């Protein structure tokens, strides 16, 4: 209970601040605990700032990354789990080794590469790095492996092609795993700060994280603390919705069960 209160305190504090007039907060932020409250800051967010643009960018980048990861990891997982091809095991180990390479180690060459390809300040530039997901490949491979081979064989005897077996028989059975991987990928992409900060230098390509941070940087000139907090609440709403919708998958994923 105490833990939950400690975790909730900053969120409540943010919410309360966002509901206060900036002029009041300039004098004393302690007034957040007492009326009057106002929605003025939210009105300002919706009318004035680029938050909507950044929100849209974040949605496009997160959704794009999520869809890409699901497609690639499902195909790769199926391949590693079911197909026989030369150097399959070696290749799988190489994919897993990717887990041990931190993003920091590759960020400079990646920046140079994307600059050379003129991909900075573009959606592909923000999405592509997120698609290389060794964890997703590993996760989906394990999931496909757990599906009994008898199902493939039954489908083969039913005259289904390999593609049809993948699409009609196996893929639907991985939906719980897809949901889990999808939610985690979406959240990771949504919360990512570093790469968008490097890749997106123009405001119209900022994701929400970068955009909000840029608004905070010139704090002295900002319209006030309440406005900043309203932006933060506004930014966290989509992620809150994702959490609420996919609570079950997230809990299952963290508990390490497949939920089948």
């Amino acid at each position, binding site marked *: 209970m105490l833990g939950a209160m400690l975790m909730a305190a900053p969120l409540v504090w943010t919410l309360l601040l966002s509901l206060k007039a900036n002029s009041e907060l300039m004098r004393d932020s302690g007034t957040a605990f007492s009326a009057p409250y106002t929605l003025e800051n939210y009105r300002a967010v919706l009318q004035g700032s680029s938050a909507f643009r950044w929100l849209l960018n974040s949605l496009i980048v997160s959704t794009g990354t999520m869809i890409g990861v699901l497609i690639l990891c499902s195909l790769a997982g199926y391949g590693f789990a079911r197909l026989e091809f030369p150097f399959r095991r070696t290749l799988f180990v190489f994919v897993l080794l990717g887990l041990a390479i931190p993003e920091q180690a590759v960020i400079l060459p990646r920046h140079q590469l994307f600059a050379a390809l003129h991909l900075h300040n573009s959606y592909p530039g923000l999405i592509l790095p997120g698609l290389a997901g060794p964890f997703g490949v590993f996760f989906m491979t394990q999931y496909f492996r757990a599906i009994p081979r*008898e*199902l493939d*064989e039954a489908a083969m*005897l*039913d005259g*289904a092609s390999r593609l049809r077996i993948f699409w009609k028989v196996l893929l639907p059975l991985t939906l719980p795993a897809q949901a889990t991987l999808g939610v985690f990928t979406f959240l990771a992409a949504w919360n990512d700060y570093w790469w968008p900060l490097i890749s997106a230098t123009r405001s119209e390509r900022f994701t929400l994280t970068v955009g909000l941070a840029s608004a905070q940087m010139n704090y002295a000139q900002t319209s006030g603390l309440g406005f900043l907090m309203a932006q933060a609440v506004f930014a966290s709403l989509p992620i809150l919705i994702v959490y609420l919708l996919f609570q079950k998958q997230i809990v299952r994923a963290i508990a390490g069960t497949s939920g089948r």
Partner: protein
Amino acid sequence: MASLELSNVRKAYGATPVLDDVSLTMAAREFVAFLGPSGSGKSTLLRIIAGLETADAGEVRLDGRRIDTLAPGDRGVAMVFQHYALYPHMSVRENMAFGLRNAGVPRQEIAARIDEAARVLEIETQLDKKPGQLSGGQRQRVAIGRAIVKQPRLFLLDEPLSNLDAALRTRTRVELAQLRQRVDAAVIMVTHDQAEAMTLADRIVVMHDRAIQQIGAPMEIYGRPANAFVARFVGSPAMTLAPVSLLADESAFAAVRLGEGARIETRVPRDGLAVGAPLELGVRPENVQVVETSGGVPEAKVELVERLGDRTFVYARLADGLSITAEDAGGSRVRIGDTIGLRIDGAAVHLFTPDGRARHAAAAAA
């Protein structure tokens, strides 16, 4: 006309051979059971016929057409898997329709075939349920239904009853036998349960050690086992095998002596058996009778008594240490630790030569 023909099928996994030169011919609408212990190659053979494994050598023909070069779905066979292998996310109806849709069967005919199969298998009310909502027996029926709607030339059943409890297994066995009369196709069933094989099959193929040991009608396999392995494997309790020596005399039939000294006059022709050669005598429990100890019969000490109601199996040990199984009446008074006399019916025993081959009683051969 021959339905299925296997010629010289061979298979190895790496350096480990699993099937050596297996050949078999099945008649149309015949029900054949592949019977054997784990690792005998029976499931591999079934999978080769289904197209789920490829043979290293040999041919598989169905109704005269070579099928071992075809994809599994094009072979005209349907399989019922040991664990049913129903598609969990599809309803029963969709499970049954999947193969037909792949084959391009018109929608109306698919519906008609499913309805007919559901009626025969009494699963009409389950058609819109998912496999997860069904009991083991119902899933089994759906798996059979999925095979039936395809109207195959050959059914392959991989241990179809092994996942059912004892009562359901017996019932399903009867249903399978009835169902078999309705379908116009040959059936191959893999099993390690001899009761299943004996009750369902027209012929049994006993497999062991990568090869077919014997092919024959159930009672032929039981009554005239081709070798010591078949003799031991088929029949429950197992046939007693005892080392004996052939006695020299003028009779046309072999007389042998048990290790503990008793002489047994068999009806097995003496031809070709060398005096003093080490032989094994095989005798089924029903041919060993429990009698009083007097009268020159072999004596044995009772180690276990198995009462089945209508009869009693008595597991005893002879003076030379040999274990022997006898059958007694349902109301047998024999108890563990008793010393009993045993009368072995010489007319019903088999002899096995050192290479394991069987020699049977002449009367039974007629």
